[in-house]
């Protein structure tokens, strides 16, 4: 009897584990099938490199280059803001403050991750966008820059939490060894702690980017949604995610436009997949040491 329960439980756990894998495969195949159908009717190179996204005009053009640039720009800006801030925060939490303050700070940072993206977008619209407009004296505050700032907020908890783990898993003996040789605290952090924790910190950044690039609601609310190639970060942009979210409701199921949106989804999926995979590689490298 006990043996039967044992094997049954084993089977259930196996099934649960397999289910998530199956779901990923299903999503991927679904995206792939729809995209494949799309690419039979529309040249893939025109799709990736085309400058114009005119799904409703005649003749239609499904070029996502401007959207790729939009996503890239917003993500890059978010990284430039979030990475230094997060790594410093992680260092502060793990190396500087006392234990009590550390616990409070950590839970606060983790709480940041719990803010719904629509709320972050809302705050961006009400507070940040008018500020950006006035501060830089530009016609609209709905810019790639505003998107980057708000997305940085969303990436910070991920990057801080994971890099803080990496920094804290640096063996105490390394730090003591460095200090005992006369290194100052900062020298120890820079030459030993950051060096040892580097794979973990890179993985944290990757996961942060993964989160940012897939983010939809916030960017839709603060970046202005203009699908043309911007000349600077202080111009409105449109991201891949925003296009899908904004247009999927208006398309006829099975139309070229509908399939084109799925193709964008496939591109996004591939990008995040590669980023997550790279992050796993770095995390794995960290563990083997």
């Amino acid at each position, binding site marked *: 009897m006990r043996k039967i329960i044992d094997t049954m439980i084993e089977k259930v756990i196996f099934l649960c584990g397999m289910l998530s894998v199956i779901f990923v495969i299903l999503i991927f195949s679904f995206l792939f099938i729809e995209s494949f159908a799309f690419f039979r009717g529309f040249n893939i190179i025109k799709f990736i490199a085309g400058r114009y996204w005119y799904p409703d005009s005649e003749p239609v053009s499904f070029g996502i280059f401007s959207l790729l640039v939009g996503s890239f720009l917003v993500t890059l800006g978010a990284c430039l803001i979030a990475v230094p801030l997060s790594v410093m925060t992680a260092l502060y939490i793990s190396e500087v403050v*006392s234990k009590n303050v550390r616990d409070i700070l950590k839970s606060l940072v983790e709480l940041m991750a719990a803010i719904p993206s629509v709320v972050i977008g809302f705050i961006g619209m009400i507070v940040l966008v008018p500020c950006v407009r006035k501060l830089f004296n530009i016609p609209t505050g709905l810019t790639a820059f505003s998107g980057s700032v708000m997305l940085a907020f969303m990436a910070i908890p991920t990057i801080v939490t994971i890099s803080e783990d990496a920094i804290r898993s640096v063996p105490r003996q390394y730090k*003591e060894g*460095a200090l*005992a*040789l006369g*290194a100052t605290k900062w020298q120890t952090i820079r*030459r030993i702690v950051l060096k*040892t924790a580097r794979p973990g910190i890179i993985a944290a950044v990757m996961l942060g980017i993964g989160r940012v690039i897939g983010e939809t609601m916030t960017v839709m609310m603060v970046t202005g949604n203009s699908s043309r190639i911007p000349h600077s970060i202080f111009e409105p942009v449109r991201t891949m995610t925003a296009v899908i979210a904004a247009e999927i409701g208006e398309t006829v199921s099975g139309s070229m436009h509908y399939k084109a949106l799925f193709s964008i989804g496939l591109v996004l999926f591939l990008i995040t997949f590669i980023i997550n995979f790279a992050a796993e590689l770095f995390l794995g490298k960290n563990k083997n040491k």
Partner: protein
Amino acid sequence: MLLNYVDFGKLMSKIEVKSFDLYYTNFHALKDININIVDRRITTIIGPSGCGKSTLLRSINRINDITEGVHTSGEINIYGKNIYDNKINVDILRRNVGMVFQRPNPFPISIYENVAFGLRVNRISSNRSIISETVERSLKAVLLWDNIKDKLHKSALTLTLEEQQRLCIARVIAVAPHIILLDEPCSSLDPVAIQKIEELIIQLKDRYTIIIVTHNMQQAARVSDDTAFMLFGKLIEFDKTEKIFTNPSKKETEDYVSGRFW
């Protein structure tokens, strides 16, 4: 910069611990320690686990400072300067009082960079050839050079434990300290490696004042000139090693060295 190492010269230096107390938060780990350690001799500190011997050692280069909740009273004078004085530059103190730890702890960087680390962080020299010379000299001093001279740029973690511990000693020697503290330096090594490290320690005696914490009494008898015996955070007896092991004056010491534990 009270403890600048060039100032030391050839003073008959010593370490004087005066009414030193140390607490971990509420735990009274060291109780009224008084001890005078003489220059260019090997002193071992023995005693059962938890008696405070490592804590005392770690107080001499103030590496205990980084443990949360540690506070102290009393003085430790090195070359007549109280290292617990506010004016002491702790980084310079630590450079002059080197430390080798219980578990070999080479940094996860190359062998060469491990030895060069102390030179770089202390800004002793940024001249490449001087650094290379010092690395070579330090590795020769610990008899490691011949084995590893062809793989200096490999990770230090590829070495055996014994080699790693030698590397850690080389790393300390490279910054030219006056005192070397060793915290159970052989506890993770096999008997052959222990013997080799002990030989090395005895060789270093001419140039450095050495203090070793050990729970291995044979080791204390083999390598040291003086031995301190500690129990429950107190210093029970401090004398010539020979006297401690053959004719101790305190009952507790005699019980301990003859193998009667509590």
